[in-house]
């Protein structure tokens, strides 16, 4: 029983980490410009 409880807690914790990361990215505006993000990676950027 005990290992099961540990594993459930662990999986929920990991999943929660993913959720937190997504919420952070969305709040940070990283989903605001999907078209631009796809194109930007193609251009060399010599800015600091």
């Amino acid at each position, binding site marked *: 029983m005990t290992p099961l409880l540990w594993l*459930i807690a662990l*999986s929920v914790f990991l*999943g929660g980490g993913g959720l937190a990361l997504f*919420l952070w990215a*969305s709040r940070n505006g990283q989903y*605001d*410009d999907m078209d631009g993000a796809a*194109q930007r990676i*193609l*251009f060399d950027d010599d800015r600091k």
Partner: protein
Amino acid sequence: MSGAALAEAPAWATRAATSTCAHCGGETASGQRFCCAGCGAAFETIQQLGLGTYYRDVVRDNLARRLQPNAEPRTDLARHVRTAEDGSHELTLAVDGLQCGACVWLIESVLARDPRVAGARVNMTTRRLKLSWNGTVEDGAALVGHIEQLGYRLVPFDPACLAAAQDRTGRELLRSLAVAGFAAANVMLPAMAIWVGLFSDMGPATRALMHWVSAAIAMPAIIYAVRPFWRSAWGALRQGRTNMDVPISVGVTLVTGMSLVQTINHAEHAYFDGAVSLLFFLLIGRVLDHYARAHARAAAEQLIALQQTDVAMLEADGTVARRDAAAVPAGARILVAPGERIGVDGTVVQGETTLDTALVTGESLPVSATAGTRVFAGTLNLGAPITVRATAAGGDTLLAECVRLMEAAEAKRGRFVMFADRVARRYAPVVHLAALLTFLFWWGVQGMGVADALLIAASVLIITCPCALALAVPAVQVIGTGRLFRRGVLVKSPTALERLAEADIVVFDKTGTLTDPALKLVSSHDPDGLKLAASLAATSRHPLSRALAAAAGPVVPAEGVAEVVGAGLACGDIRLGSAAFVGVEATATTPALYLARPGAPVVRFDFAEALRPEAAETIAALRGLGLEVQLLSGDREAAVADAAARAGIATWRAGCSPVDKVAAIEALRASGKRVLMVGDGLNDGPCLAAAHVSISPSTAAEISQNAADVVFQGASLAPVADAIRTARRMKRLCQENIALSLAYNLLMVPVAVAGYVTPWLAALAMSTSSLLVIGNSFRLRRQAR
């Protein structure tokens, strides 16, 4: 320079064909690297900044506006700048002329090289530039100037509008979706164990533990993610209506509550997994729907921002200030430069010019104006600078009249109810009734306990919950509007495509809609004369001059050309203009220009309105789709008859005022027709609103763009037929999807009523129906054309 240099003009005709401009990609005179001095300067600047790789990477987009360095007068920026507490300034601008990722890179790199700039970021989806800088507010103009010199056009957004456009709903939906998705994935872990446990030897204690784990994950997520549905359901109930969100909210809440009671009582079944995955699927539909609408709205805002005009107002002390057209008081004097649109209704007080009134009246030929002539907002000044006194901003202006007509027409159109909502209005009460009857049957007739009977009723709600129904329409809409968007068709209203699919008669406006906004040269027998005339014409903005210059191909503009307003152009002994101006008898019935030069007979150039590319094909295609086609125009009878004949339209009317047009549309509607109106002028605004559904080209006057449901870009008329075809296909797919999900529910409801639905069956049923609907919607995308 004078006649001596011009005498060599015939030599140009023998030169080789055209080449493309190194900066903007437009046509240039052969041997020239650039089409104009502005492009040359922009190319220099980019090379000097070391950003020349731009030209290697840029992919030209034919739907985007070509780069035009130094084309537009600067707008008034200071009003739109926001200043932060730390003294930095911020400005959001609409960018016109964005072709591809390389343009984003170029704009950001150029700005980053200015030390004043704190941040510059172009959003390619919404085509906006967010610029922040340190220094003074006035520095903003210089920074914007850098980019305008490259040929992009930047127009500031009003901060008030931006605050309203902050997409709060979208973010809330996305957060809810994330939370529901997280919970749905994690709750499956204990749920799977329980399902397997039903067939093996899981003890009651382990099952209870798993139920508690499920509850711990699902409860907070459900409470968080169900709020958008509760809010909408509550809003509908308060107004005495019911919508799809009512059964969803009631179902999810009831199921969750019952599952909690079951868990506390250590019972066999709990539906946490079902409730959470239901919310997850529903939120996918909601998010898709929201993004499709937000995309269309952003595109519409962009169009409106790019059209916003400011005017040069003469202050009392004689200085000139640029003001918002809406902020101009009656009686103020406005300076209108050649090539500028008049921003107000008023009377000319000084100067003499020709005006292009096509957007206002539909008249395709320029009219002349002198002191005392009444002019209207939206008119283009073609000739010389004039001063206009703004008239009272009362109900007697043409613009106000059109707005009034439009509002009246829109009120008549009333609220169109979307197909999905119509289904939901019938469906929701049936679901509630079925659940209630199930409960009454098991509790009252069969004598089951309240809790068990409620659980069966709840399982009916969950299985009938219109999960697939809620996905059915948004999935099709997102794919359909995205497909149209890539072809330059913007869908502004969420119900537009449904209404478009229903249209059975198309009414076209002529000038600017069926025909190209520009006139075309139709006859010239003298290539040398044409080249010479074009070199004079290249210096003028008159539509006939521009048509002549365009027909002749790239030429070097002649120097020392004087424009006599309303008459013609003169360069030394050479004259190009009206018959009277060159001193011959007028011989043409259509618009014409005459060229007189020493030692050669007078040459006549005839012009006609050209149809838009693919106009006749589009009309034929519309007939093929089973639509009637009519033409209503404010122009002269001869011009309308000619255009109708060439486009293949049998039914037409000329000389219609805005009121006539609206009356004609109303008459068609009264006879039971569903009218699609295609128009671009100020005078078309009211009939666009009066029609069942409406389309405008993106070159349209602001008022008609606002009234239109759909806006298309580019010169060709083909998008009109294309939009109708796509709309019809979308409608059929939506109906298929809804039929699929309803048939599915019909199949499962008896099982649920009989009490045989267990949590695993509910979860399986829901996922398969949703996947089926999404899969069906993707057929729209696969259809390659």
